[in-house]
């Protein structure tokens, strides 16, 4: 019997090629989108689960209460990890990891500005499962000036030679550092990522009191707890621990940290301490919902196309029943057919997704491996889900088909009845509701992206070339030499530029009441020209000026957000007030207008600026727009002459700033692609449905034509029904989309308002697409010769 079903199924498929094509393509497209999203989601969920002890590893974070605000730090102070390890027997092991930013590494003529470097305690390899190919897990990071390289980094410097015991010159001072280990490249789905690890003892030797620095921040810390230890109970012991070790200092500085333990597996997905307002998990949810939607659309297509075609299968059902088939057997047969279709679509899906994966990776900015396509268990699981999809999508059509009464269908007195039509229309409405919501979403996401990129940021970022000198001693000479290049209109030096990192400084500022108020202030070290060159507006007092000798050490400029924090209602009031910050004291000389030194997702934070030439490693050069390549070449020539040891590294400020929106841009692109796909699949369904509905109305069209109906009139009549459905879908989709997008926009501190135009645009787009799809069928039916259609009756 099964054989017979297969036979009929395959013959049916090959006989009705257009139908099968629509059905299989629709399903395969939906399943491909789903599979890609599934890969993306499972990649995101796989972060850090390769560590065998991951359920016992916790990241230590701190909420630091100052009189002004509470700071959510992603790491504790330097002293916490080593001291807690000694204090609490619950902690099996503790490690500090301090990201190092850019580091110059040299071996003879080979030199690279390494960007992925960190210092770490020797317990690193005891806690994390990073694979050490060479060297000892326990001792490789013990001695000062020890370095462990990733496999690919080692190859950069040593080729195929054994790097163990070799010497690399690290940092500008070129300290000889010994290679004591080579680790396998850290996998993409690791939250802790680095190519070069230098032993923590290297810096604790230089800064002797780092291990007892309770107020200095700058490293991550991870604890490996002993089996069975309750992290919540341990957390409760931390306040007493901090109090006993550092109580007096806390009172003096008025900074009260509270320590928390974040489970390692939650850090990547759930933590909002990594700079972004929304945790990764919310994107995961959004895409999971999109995947379900797309699959739903594809299944609806399938149901619609199959039931619409039931007229053609009715005769077969009648005959089968007459010769003895029961309802159950027929239901089984039709479900079987839909499963066969799904399985065919599934193999197409595998092909499509393996072809699309590189593109998808690029779009999503991930490196999702193709391993899934070779793992038999996963493939089997996916095949299983394809069969389940076939089952779910096949049930309704199968029930409809198998309930036909042979008496009726064999006499040819057959119509699908209003019940089925209503359901199919409902399904089309559902499809278009989802599609329209996705279109609206895409438009709004893009508008927000556009807004963020074109918004006046309050400073000049055009034609601004930023050169990172990494503190090279020759940087001042290099800086001065830029004056000799005519295309460089102006230049200034600073510790930070907008869109990049900057220190947060423990500061005491005189507030409205006249007290010195403690706060953590973002801090830019700048030179005298920086504010002018960046066209940052001074709204009270003055900017830094060479005429005032005290400006170099005793002057501070604050932004509006800062003076608001200290209680001033107008910028004038803050001028001349006292400050203490990082060992300097002086007066506030000016207030600058707020500018966006971080992305538009974040509120503008209080910011302070001071002159400190020693810390100004970044040079911003405002260059003329003409022949940029030649200008850069000229600058590079100077660099090579003066700082030959370092690679010349630069970036354009506008691009650098926009890099903050990388994940939003990716999000938008993914969103766009899936929305387009959803629309396409919906259209496939609409196309199929329209063609069957016109076939069913062939006789009506013939009669109307004989009576004198025009082609235009007929097309209108045939299209009207479907357009009504699109309109209903629009009415349902709009409030849902509005609500969802309203929430999404809340995650941006600076955002567009949700205007009507995105909704109108999406509605028109859906209408246009539907008209184009339906009218093709309608026109075909309307121009046909009525004699032909009437004769078939």
């Amino acid at each position, binding site marked *: 019997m099964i054989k*017979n079903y297969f036979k009929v199924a395959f013959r049916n498929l090959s006989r009705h090629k257009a139908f099968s094509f629509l059905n299989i393509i629709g399903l395969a497209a939906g399943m491909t989108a789903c599979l890609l999203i599934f890969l993306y989601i499972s990649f995101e969920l796989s972060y850090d689960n390769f560590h065998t002890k991951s359920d016992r590893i916790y990241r230590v974070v701190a909420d630091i209460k100052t009189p002004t605000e509470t700071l959510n730090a992603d790491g504790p102070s330097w002293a916490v990890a080593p001291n807690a390890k000694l204090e609490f027997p619950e902690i099996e092991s503790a490690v500090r990891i301090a990201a190092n930013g850019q580091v110059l590494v040299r071996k003879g003529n080979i030199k690279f500005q390494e960007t992925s470097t960190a210092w770490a305690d020797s317990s690193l390899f005891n806690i994390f499962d990073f694979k050490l190919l060479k060297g000892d897990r326990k001792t490789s990071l013990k001695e000062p000036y020890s370095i462990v390289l990733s496999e690919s980094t080692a190859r950069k410097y040593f080729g195929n030679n054994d790097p163990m015991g070799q010497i690399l010159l690290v940092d500008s001072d070129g300290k000889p550092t010994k290679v004591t280990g080579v680790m396998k490249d850290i996998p993409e789905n690791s939250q802790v990522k680095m190519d070069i690890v230098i032993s923590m003892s290297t810096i604790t030797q230089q800064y002797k009191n780092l291990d007892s620095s309770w107020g200095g921040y700058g490293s991550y810390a991870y604890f490996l707890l002993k089996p069975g230890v309750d992290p919540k109970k341990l957390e409760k012991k931390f306040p007493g621990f901090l109090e006993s070790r550092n109580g007096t200092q806390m009172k003096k500085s008025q900074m009260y940290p509270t320590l928390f333990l974040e489970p390692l597996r939650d850090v990547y997905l759930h933590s909002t301490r990594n700079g972004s307002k929304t945790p990764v998990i919310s994107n995961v949810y959004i895409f999971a919902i999109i995947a379900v939607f797309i699959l739903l659309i594809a299944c609806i297509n399938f149901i619609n196309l199959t039931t619409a075609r039931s007229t053609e299968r009715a005769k077969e059902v009648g005959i089968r*029943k007459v010769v003895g088939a029961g309802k159950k057997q027929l239901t089984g047969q039709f479900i079987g057919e839909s499963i066969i279709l799904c399985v065919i679509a599934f193999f197409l899906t595998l092909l499509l997704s393996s072809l699309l994966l590189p593109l998808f990776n690029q779009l999503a900015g991930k490196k999702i491996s193709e391993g899934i396509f070779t793992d038999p268990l996963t493939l089997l699981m996916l095949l299983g889900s394809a069969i389940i999809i076939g089952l779910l999508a096949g049930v309704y059509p199968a029930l409809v088909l198998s309930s036909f009464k042979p008496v009726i269908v064999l006499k040819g007195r057959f119509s699908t009845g209003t019940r089925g039509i209503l359901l199919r229309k409902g399904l089309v409405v559902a499809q278009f509701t989802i599609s329209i919501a996705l279109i609206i979403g895409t438009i709004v996401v893009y508008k927000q992206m556009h807004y963020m990129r074109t918004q006046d940021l309050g400073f000049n970022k055009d034609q601004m070339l930023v050169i990172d000198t990494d503190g090279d001693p020759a940087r001042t000479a290099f800086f001065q030499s830029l004056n000799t290049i005519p295309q460089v209109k102006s230049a200034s030096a600073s510790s930070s530029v907008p869109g990049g990192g900057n220190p947060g400084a423990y500061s005491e500022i005189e507030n409205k009441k006249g007290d010195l108020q403690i706060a953590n202030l973002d801090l830019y070290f700048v030179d005298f020209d920086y504010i002018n060159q960046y066209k940052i507006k001074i709204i009270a007092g003055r900017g830094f000026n060479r005429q005032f000798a005290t400006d170099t050490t005793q002057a501070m400029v604050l932004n509006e957000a800062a003076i608001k924090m200290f209680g001033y209602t107008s910028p004038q009031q803050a001028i001349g007030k006292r400050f203490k910050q990082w060992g300097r004291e002086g007066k506030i000389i000016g207030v600058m207008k707020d500018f966006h030194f971080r992305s538009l997702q974040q509120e503008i934070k209080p910011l302070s600026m001071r002159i400190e030439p020693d810390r100004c490693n970044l040079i911003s050069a405002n260059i003329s727009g003409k022949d940029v390549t030649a200008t850069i070449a000229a600058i590079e020539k100077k660099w090579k002459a003066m700082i030959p040891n370092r690679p010349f590294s630069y970036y354009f400020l506008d691009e650098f700033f926009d890099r903050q929106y990388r994940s939003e841009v990716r999000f938008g692109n993914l969103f766009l692609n899936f929305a387009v796909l959803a629309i396409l699949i919906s259209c496939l369904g609409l196309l199929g449905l329209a063609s069957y509905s016109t076939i069913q109305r062939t006789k009506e069209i013939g009669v109307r034509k004989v009576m004198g109906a025009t082609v235009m009139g007929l097309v209108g009549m045939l299209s009207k029904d479907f357009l009504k459905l699109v309109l209903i879908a629009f009415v349902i989709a709009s409030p849902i989309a509005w609500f969802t997008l309203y929430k999404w926009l809340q995650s941006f501190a600076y955002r567009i308002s949700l205007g009507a135009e995105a909704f109108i645009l999406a509605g028109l787009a859906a209408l246009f697409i539907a008209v184009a799809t339906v009218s093709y069928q309608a026109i075909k039916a309307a121009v046909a010769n009525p004699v032909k259609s009437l004769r078939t009756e």
Partner: protein
Amino acid sequence: MKHMIKITNLEKIYRTEEVETVALNKLNMDVKEGEFVAVMGPSGCGKSTLLNILGLLDEPDTGSFEFNGQEIAHYNERKRADIRKHNIGFVFQSFNLIDELTVFENVELPLIYTGVSTVERKKRVEEVLDKMQIMHRRNHYPQQLSGGQQQRVAVARAVVNKPKLILADEPTGNLDSSNGNEVMELLTDLNEHGTTIIMVTHSEHDARYSHRIIRMLDGQTVTENILV
């Protein structure tokens, strides 16, 4: 001879929202085992309704229907299907073959649903195709056959399960006279080998092949001519 079918006061009324059509009006009818009965009458007299009820494809509203001594007028669909597949074969005016199946597969279909083994199926299908002289067409699809050939396939399908009763609904209606005669010969032959046949027809010529002609009008039998 034993009664195969005994129908008493059978009624069937079709209702739409506004119109009520009486298709069968207190109809009485007996068919003995081994008989060949022709049912005749003008369009709309209830012939097809009667045949559908006889074939257990439809159920009467009131009245009694005994099949082989069993009262089955109000059996549910599953029970009726069960009796149908073991006892009744159908031949239609428009052949009603499944286009996606070959001649062999079409004939095989009833055997599949009664659960006959593959080997046995092959044997029986080939036997009956041989008898109908369409063995050489076994791998063709219905559209590749002439009308007469298609109807022979349909007859083959009707008899492959060795049913006790064959219901034929204008079996020659779509055929020319020579093909029509061939089909009638086939039915006669089957009847001579013991199969009961009830045939609805418009053709006096075809009706003469039967033993007895039942004439219907407005849902009732009006006359009976016994030919043999």
